[in-house]
């Protein structure tokens, strides 16, 4: 695992991966968007508003997935002291916060025409809101602590404590019967919707994942380069003061 601890090696790997990820993102996103608008059937009750689903559901999945990426990276950082893991968790957080905000926002826009309200304090929505707050707290630690090393460890601890919210989000629709509908895709008997619908959903999900991978690698590279510049500056200052 420490093979890619060397930032230069990581950068080389990232540069090799990035064109592929970009290509796959363009492919899946363009087909996914086309399919969401023209191929997938409209819901028999909700007509065209059901198409919000193709943005909303993948965003919601990604909000949890990115949190798990962040928590895993934090765990790796704390336990094995992997030098890039801190940067990985730090780079993932704003993207996760963005997905969570997107899930909340599209949920509100979908809720108004179908449920008649933008927001309801039910288990699913509330726990996703908490997830958003956890992302904010995580990023706040990074931005308020001057010492990078300490900020990394402190935020990792918070990220791990917050993992407890993820199963709560997952099972909230089973535990509390609020407005939010129950599971309709990950069911034992298979998805309860036409195949064009869930295929589109999965393609959009992959598109969102490639988007995450792209942003993630970019942010990692930026973080590494920023560190390099900082190190270079310090060396310059040390040289000049000699």
């Amino acid at each position, binding site marked *: 695992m420490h093979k890619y601890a060397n930032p230069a090696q990581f950068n080389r790997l990232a540069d090799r991966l990035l064109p592929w990820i970009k290509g796959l993102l363009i492919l899946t996103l363009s087909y996914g968007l086309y399919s969401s608008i023209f191929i997938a059937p409209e819901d028999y009750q909700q007509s065209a508003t059901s198409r919000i689903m193709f943005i909303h559901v993948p965003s919601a999945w990604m909000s949890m997935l990115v949190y798990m990426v962040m928590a895993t990276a934090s765990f790796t950082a*704390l336990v094995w002291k992997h030098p890039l893991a801190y940067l990985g968790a730090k780079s993932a957080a704003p993207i996760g916060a963005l997905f969570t905000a997107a899930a909340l926002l599209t949920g509100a826009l979908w809720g108004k025409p179908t449920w008649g309200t933008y927001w309801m304090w039910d288990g699913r929505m*509330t726990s996703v809101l*908490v997830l958003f*707050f*956890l992302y*904010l*707290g995580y990023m*706040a*630690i990074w931005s*308020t*602590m001057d*010492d990078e090393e*300490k900020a990394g*460890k*402190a935020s990792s*601890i*918070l990220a*791990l*404590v*917050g993992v*407890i919210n993820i199963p*709560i989000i997952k099972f909230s629709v089973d535990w509390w019967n609020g407005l939010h509908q129950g599971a309709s895709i990950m069911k034992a008997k298979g998805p309860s919707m036409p195949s064009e619908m869930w295929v589109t959903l999965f393609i959009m999900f992959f598109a969102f994942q490639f988007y995450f991978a792209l942003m993630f690698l970019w942010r990692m590279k930026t973080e590494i380069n920023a560190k390099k510049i900082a190190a270079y500056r310090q060396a310059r200052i040390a040289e000049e003061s000699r």
Partner: protein
Amino acid sequence: MTSPSLSYIFSMIFKRDTKLAWSQGGSGTLGLSFFLIASSLFPFGIGADPNLLQDVSVSIIWIMALLAGLLSLDRLYQVDFEDGTLEEMMISPIGVTGVIIAKSLAHWVNSIVPLILFAPLLGVLYFLPDQAFGALILSLLVGSPALSFIGSIGASLTLAVKRGGVLLALIILPLYIPTLIFGASVVKNAISGLDYYPELSILGAVTLVSMVIAPIASKAALKLALE
């Protein structure tokens, strides 16, 4: 010379924190005053309609208890950290975990238990029905230790930050939500004459889980701050 027993060290830390909390400028009286004054502001803001006040009473008492506890949290480790006492405590035979549990427990007893004692008074001011008083006290007793223990995580994480009070609130308040939900729902069930034991047991579970997780996370954070 024989080293003092663990329970002796534990009780010394506990007593010391208690003395500090109730001495001049300590957090005990301040937190309690904040709890009473801030809670009595709501009727001025939302009007004196007894039915309305009764509806919101539980939530206000619970939220105010949570905020009053938060007030004293940033001093949980801060003062001892600054003058080096914390480091001394941590190398004592009781260990870091022992220090964390002693201090969190002292925070609960000094900053939150007084609020529980005064909660019935607020209940009267908010026209809480008679059958709900027991549930209010019970819910606070069962749920509020979680506030101190979860708070310990935030207090230790923000130790290395100058003026970390706002950051502390940002980190801790989301983690308080489960306690608040189940704590308030116990009393709401009692008001409408329903069985509240399921909610009470979940509330107890939240407290117990926080008592397990918080010392582990706080320990990592304290070691980090003292590095």
